[in-house]
């Protein structure tokens, strides 16, 4: 379990409505500091600047999907160590296994509950080394 509490979250998501809900959920319910990134191609630079504790990635996005971005992050020293949680509308076991194989620390299925989301992330955070 990491020594500090979970505070800084980076969420890469192209849908503006969901961005707004996630921000309200994490800031108002979870009392966390949030950086929403709408363009996945600019995500790595934004993450390097924001220095989050944990990254949330949407799976299906235009221009670059979640898994591709995740692999790109692993190539870069400034983002390779960041824990990643996927948020996806896909929910089959095979697909979730695929995510774990990629090295994701967790998966949350869409639609997520904004009242539950901060707690779900804290549970994942607590299990990290």
């Amino acid at each position, binding site marked *: 379990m990491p020594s500090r509490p979970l505070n800084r979250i980076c969420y890469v998501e192209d*849908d503006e*409505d*969901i961005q707004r*809900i996630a921000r*309200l*959920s994490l800031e*108002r*319910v979870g009392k966390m500091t949030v950086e929403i990134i709408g363009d996945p191609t600019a995500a790595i630079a934004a993450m390097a600047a924001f220095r989050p504790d944990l990254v949330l990635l949407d799976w*299906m996005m235009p221009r670059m999907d979640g898994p591709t971005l995740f692999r790109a992050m692993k190539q870069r020293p400034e983002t390779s160590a960041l824990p990643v949680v996927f948020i996806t*509308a*896909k929910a*089959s*076991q*095979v697909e979730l296994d695929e995510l774990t194989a990629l090295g994701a620390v967790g998966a949350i299925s*869409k*639609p*997520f*509950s*904004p*009242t539950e989301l901060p707690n779900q992330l804290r549970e994942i955070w607590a299990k990290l080394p």
Partner: protein
Amino acid sequence: MSQVAASDSVVRVSERGLSAGIRDRADPRLVLADRVDQLYGQMWLGIVATFAIGAIATFEFWSVGLRDLVLFWWGLVLLVTAATAGLLYAYRRSADRAEHADQWLRWLGIAALANGANWGFAGAVFFPSHTDEQQVFLAFLLTGMMSGGIPLYAASWPMFALYAAGIVAPFTYVLGTFGNRLFTEIALLVPIFYAVNVAVAYRLTQVFHAGYRLRHAYGKLTEDYSVLNQRLERQLGELEQARRQVEASGRKLSLFAERAPIAVLELDAQGIVTQVNPGAELLFGYAGAEIVGRQIKDRLVLPELRAEFDRQWAQLIESREPVSALKVRSPRRDGLQVVCEWTVTPLVNPEGTVIAVIAQGQDVTRQLEAERMKKEFTSTLSHELRTPLTSIIGSLQLINSGVLGDLTQDIGELTAVAERNGSRLLDLINDLLDIEKIESGKLTLAPEVFSLNDLVREALVLNRAFAERFKVRFEISSEIAGPPPEHKVHADRKRLLQVMTNLLSNGAKFSPDGGTVEIAVRERGRRVRVSVHDRGPGIPEAFRGRIFGRFAQADSTASRQKSGTGLGLAISKRLVEMMQGHIGFESREGGGTTFWFDLPRHDS
């Protein structure tokens, strides 16, 4: 089967008939009857001869004297002739003379002996007392009578031997005791003469016997052959009928292939096409002549699939087992491609050699396209419907949670209604996706070992809020309230939780206000059963048969008010069955319902 048996019997009959000897064919009783018949047949000759010669001899002896004796002898002649004629008459009248041939033969023997003895008596009595001329007459008479007996009694030499002995024995005695040297010499010669005559009669009897036997054997043989002939004719008739049947079913079969809407190809063991039906011509756009005589792979297998085709073909010929549901993409003559589902059946002769391969192909191109579109649709449904729902339900949840500030009561009630219905929509989408996945075989389970008691408790916690909405209480039966057995099972925990949620929410929905839903976990043999009992209205009789069907909801206003997707039980049944479980219910209309499922117990 019956035809085979019949032909077997024919073979047996003919072999026995042809290899058996004449001796076996001629019935000895019938041969004897024929000989006896011949003897009686010429008896009238003997009777007439005895009477006529007897009359002449009497006339001759009468002139010489000893008239008392002559009269007595003439009386004997008449008696013997009359008795013999009576015997002949009786024989002719007898209906069963053939069966008692040996008896008639004995009577004839007695008659022959009496006849012979009568002549012997004449010789013995009249020879000594007469003149030389009359003695010559007598000797001539007796010799003639004896010789005449040969043809008459030829059919039975003992008969002749008796007859001739009757003549010769007294005469020889008289000659031998006459005291005349010449007569004594004649007396010595007569037995030799007798023996020669009997020997001739014996030979004749043999010849007659063989002749009659041959006649009978021939008759029997003719009879056998006519029976054999009749059987052969019947067999030929049956064979002809069988041939017609085979021909008719052959015509029927080729008609089936010709009119069938599927492609039918006949190939040899090397994969060369020998016949195609119009269905195949239509499907692939080739004329029959363009395919027949060629390797099927040259025409109907894509170049990149030919190596794989060769491998599978070799396997088919090796195993000689039919292959079905084989989907293959094939090029048409016009360059388009079709996907066919093939059933390939090797025809094997009794020696185990593949003599032909029948391939039946059905065009499934459109079906596959439809399946692909359905999959695409499902994937779109999954993503495109969930994304806006995330926004809708998320927004409402945030508003209803109160973190954004307090609401007036009316607004609060309405946003709660909106959130609840958004969730229902999401449930429906999830259920639809689940049933689609299950039915297309794409749902995979993640089984693990866990305690069913723990799972039930977890389900109760998750569904408590739902129950409270219907003012219903969940109650665990005492068996798992006390120190419980573990009830371990090997199943997909998440999916089983889904099943439990379904049964619990059904129980809550159909319970009366303030009611309880009882949950029990019990071991039944090698299985563990979870039951959920409500005190609701029960399931209408007419609905029970389709309760596990898709979109099943009892058609009553009461249940319509309860909402739900109508897919929950259908999904639950399929999920439980995928985990080697059973699901069922007991219900009395008006008396509550118990839904249950059981799973195999897991013993570590």
